[in-house]
């Protein structure tokens, strides 16, 4: 996959990609993300869906007397679960975090960490 195609694919899936090789730095980039609540929801949906599909698959296989049917139903279930929980769908981003604007951050400098003489082996 070419770098450009890979970039396009990643940005489509919601990963922030660097386009600096191809576009000037001022170009806008799309960010699809999941917020913390969304991640928790995705996890819950995944657990429940996989459990439901496992039970359904077993019942289907047992009733039909077909091991293959059980495997196929479960494989379908895993795929469906993946389609719902892996991509950064908008409903996973309903409580987004509002990060501080860079210009606003400059107005409030970070507090300095005072190095006490008792500390030893301080890195920087």
């Amino acid at each position, binding site marked *: 996959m070419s770098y450009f195609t890979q970039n396009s694919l990643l940005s489509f899936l919601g990963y922030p990609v660097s386009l600096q090789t191809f576009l000037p730095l001022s170009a806008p980039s799309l960010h699809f993300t999941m917020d913390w609540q969304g991640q928790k929801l995705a996890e819950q949906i995944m657990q429940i869906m996989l459990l439901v599909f*496992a039970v359904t*698959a*077993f019942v289907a*296989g*047992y009733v*039909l*007397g*077909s*091991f293959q049917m*059980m495997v196929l139903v*479960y494989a379908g279930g895993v795929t469906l679960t993946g389609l719902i929980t892996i991509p950064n769908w908008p409903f996973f981003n309903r409580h987004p975090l509002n990060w501080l604007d860079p210009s606003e951050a400059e107005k409030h400098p970070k507090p300095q960490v005072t190095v006490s003489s008792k500390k030893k082996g301080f890195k920087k």
Partner: protein
Amino acid sequence: MCVIASLSDNLNIPSPSAEIQIMNINWFQKQPKGSDEVSLTMNISADLQSLFTWNTKQVFIFVAAEYETRKNSLNQVSLWDAIIPAKERAKFWIRSSNKYRFVDHGKNLRGKEFNLTLHWHVMPKTGKMFADKIVMSGYSLPEEYI
């Protein structure tokens, strides 16, 4: 899911049946090394369809001759085996000479009474393997070498 599938095999109560007839003792000799050896032709018929479940990959069966000697309380010699891949093939009738040599450790086979047991191993697609057998007794070898 695989565990539950395997556990569901315990719900199956098999009712297999089998019968083995010895059609002919082809030859019965003492080998140069001093051990007795016999070749026989068997008629094996069995209905093992009830062993199969939805979780069965195949059933391995073998026929063993079992007898007692002065040295060993149990000698087992495997004479024939087969793999049954599907339920439809589990009801069968076959006439065959022994696939594997019926040899003794010694010269104990003359006039020996022995059992023929049909063992089966139900091999699952996933999980626990079940094994059992049917013992058929009342067979014996000739008193003298043929």
